[in-house]
């Protein structure tokens, strides 16, 4: 279980509070106006922003002193998810060993992960030789290899067209199901939230509210969400 315990993050005038929990394996969307703090919330969980108050706990253990790379977390950023100077296979290999010391079994796992996301045989290419959708798949394949119990998606597919994005979300759903990972996905598109997540966190006015049923939220949005959706 991921628990945000009286969490408060302050950056100048900006402030974000959260106090809730989600169960392992759940899929949760994070929605709200830009600048409200959706990314900040994910960055805090990933370990890039230190909370000013409160704590983040995974399975009852505080993550306060845990470095980003040691957290039970894989994160897909908005961009720069792959190192452009390394091949796709090397990029995936970093998920298994940061020193890239790979045994033959590791290489087999990399090939299998590439096959799984539909990039079989492309391990020798560099990211620039792949399309945007394929780059997203490669980043997902690395998350699959790392097999961390929490997957954070900070709108990594925002630059893709609608059809490709739907494909990618489908793939994320499948992978999450297979690995049993908890997924927190930032989105600004309510349709994504409905399609992907049973529960949704609304971030606005300095508060990341507790996850609520996505369908209920869309039917009967609270004031902040209604304003964001343009239904006020």
């Amino acid at each position, binding site marked *: 279980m991921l628990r945000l315990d009286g969490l408060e993050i302050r950056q100048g005038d900006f402030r974000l509070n959260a106090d809730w929990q989600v169960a392992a394996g759940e899929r949760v969307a994070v929605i709200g106006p830009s600048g409200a703090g959706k990314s900040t919330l994910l960055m805090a969980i990933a*370990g890039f922003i230190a909370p000013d108050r409160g704590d983040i706990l995974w399975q009852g253990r505080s993550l*306060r002193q845990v*470095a980003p*790379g*040691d957290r039970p977390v*894989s994160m897909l950023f908005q961009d720069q998810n792959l190192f452009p100077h390394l091949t796709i296979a090397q990029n995936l290999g970093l998920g298994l060993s940061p*020193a890239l010391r790979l045994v033959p079994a590791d290489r087999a796992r990399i090939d299998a992960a590439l096959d799984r996301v539909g990039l079989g045989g492309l391990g020798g290419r560099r990211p*620039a030789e792949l399309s945007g959708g394929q780059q997203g798949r490669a980043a997902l394949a690395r998350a699959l290899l790392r097999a961390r119990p929490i997957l954070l998606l900070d709108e990594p597919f925002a630059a893709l067209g609608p059809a490709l994005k739907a494909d990618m979300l489908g793939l994320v759903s499948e992978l999450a199901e297979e690995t049993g990972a908890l997924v927190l996905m930032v989105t600004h598109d309510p349709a994504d939230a409905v399609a992907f997540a049973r529960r949704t966190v609304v971030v606005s006015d300095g508060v990341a509210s507790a996850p609520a049923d996505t369908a209920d939220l869309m039917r009967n949005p609270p004031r902040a969400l209604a304003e964001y959706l343009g239904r006020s």
Partner: protein
Amino acid sequence: MARRVGPVTRAGRAVALCTTVLTLGTLLAVLLRAETASFGPADWSALRFTVLAALAAAGLSVGLAIPCARALARRSFPGRGAIVSLMGAPFLLPVVVAVLGILAVFGRSGLVNRLLDVVGLPAVSIYGPHGVILGLVFFNFPLAVRMILSGWQAIPAERLRLAAALGFGPGTVLRHLELPMLQQTLPGAFVAIFLVCLTSFAIPLTLGGGPRATTLELGIYQALRFDYDLGRAALLAAAQFALCALAVGLAARLAVPARFGAGLDRPVERWDAQGWALRLQDVAVLVLGCGFLVLPLAMIVIRGLEGLSDIPAAVWPAALRSVLVAMVSTALCMAATLSLCTAISAGLAARWIETAGMLPLAASSLVLGTGLFILVHPFAAPERLALPVTALVNAAMALPYALRLILPAHREVEAAYGQLADSLGLAGVSRLRWLVLPRLRPVIGFASGVAAALSMGDLGVIALFANEGQATLPLVVQQLMGAYRMQAAAGASLVLVGLSFALFWICDRGGRRHAAA
């Protein structure tokens, strides 16, 4: 946020500590030793000459560079890029070699005197205060051109377009756009060059001397090598350090323009400078400016080729020693620079670490050398440590330049990929190997080339320490010149230039080849 402190960060902090100890520790050794001596009239005149020569050379370099940079900024013609590159060449040229080129043009039997002879005018002598200033200008005028040119190119194209739309003439453009830019650029350029001139040793050594043209550094050298007067050398070294520290403090208050500004090969579109008089002026300025640089360079090649057959056998082992010292000092310098960058990006005491890396700028290699001489001398014969000490000092002297080149690029890499690397647990040596080195390859190659060329041409600390058996190639050239074996010196210089530029080229090329996207 708990980011692990890896071995590379720890190494960076150690490097910062080492440069501090090396610069300030040797200074302390100098100061402790200096108490016994007193500052005599000859020392005052050395101090005065050091300051006046540096002021004159910096003023002349900057003053001459303004029209030249202006012409380069507003003209576009084939060969413009070559001229901009030419302006970068003297920085990498071994000083003794350049001095030989200058002598071939302005020296006793040089081109200028032969011309004067034909016209029936008396010959001029290059040796003395004006020779030292001329030599300093030869090195720093092109540096000033590049710095001021980067100022010109920082004027936004939109503003020049607006000026054209409003019908500004050259005078109005000068008043509203160019003068404000110069006001910002010139003080920094002046102080930077003043500092370079203060710490120049090889030029006063070869063109100066005597009571009228002795600098503090030359005084240090003479006190150590000929009078064996450690106390007096230490006193002069302390004065030299105080002078440099003053100039560095001044430079820190001014924005010093980039020496290796990128994108200098891009001319600015100008609508106000189309008149034929202005065109003529720019052509004349560029011809004169380039001639001033090209003639000595050409003479180095011509005289060098003539002298190749006259090269004494001592040149080859000296060349080998020079190359080895350059390789070791370049490797040391790069390792130090990269670990400093890592330690700076780790955040803790970043400003202090960066300052420590820039400290050698304030220390001249002669002051460092004097301090090391004093420290080493009770335990071992200094000449036995000549080459290791030279490699170490050369690495330290190149460190500020390397840091200035690599740190901005390192910051960009960390900004773009730092979080991804953190999220994958890429730390320490792995981060260096899989992220930093591949991304920074081109700039590391270029910085290595600069460090190698600087070390190859160095004639500073080695002159204090070396005996016959450890002379490096620049020292051999200087000794040949001192013995008036000009032909042999010219041949040896050509070997030196060839090796320096070859090392630079190999490093720079190695960095750019296979540079990943």
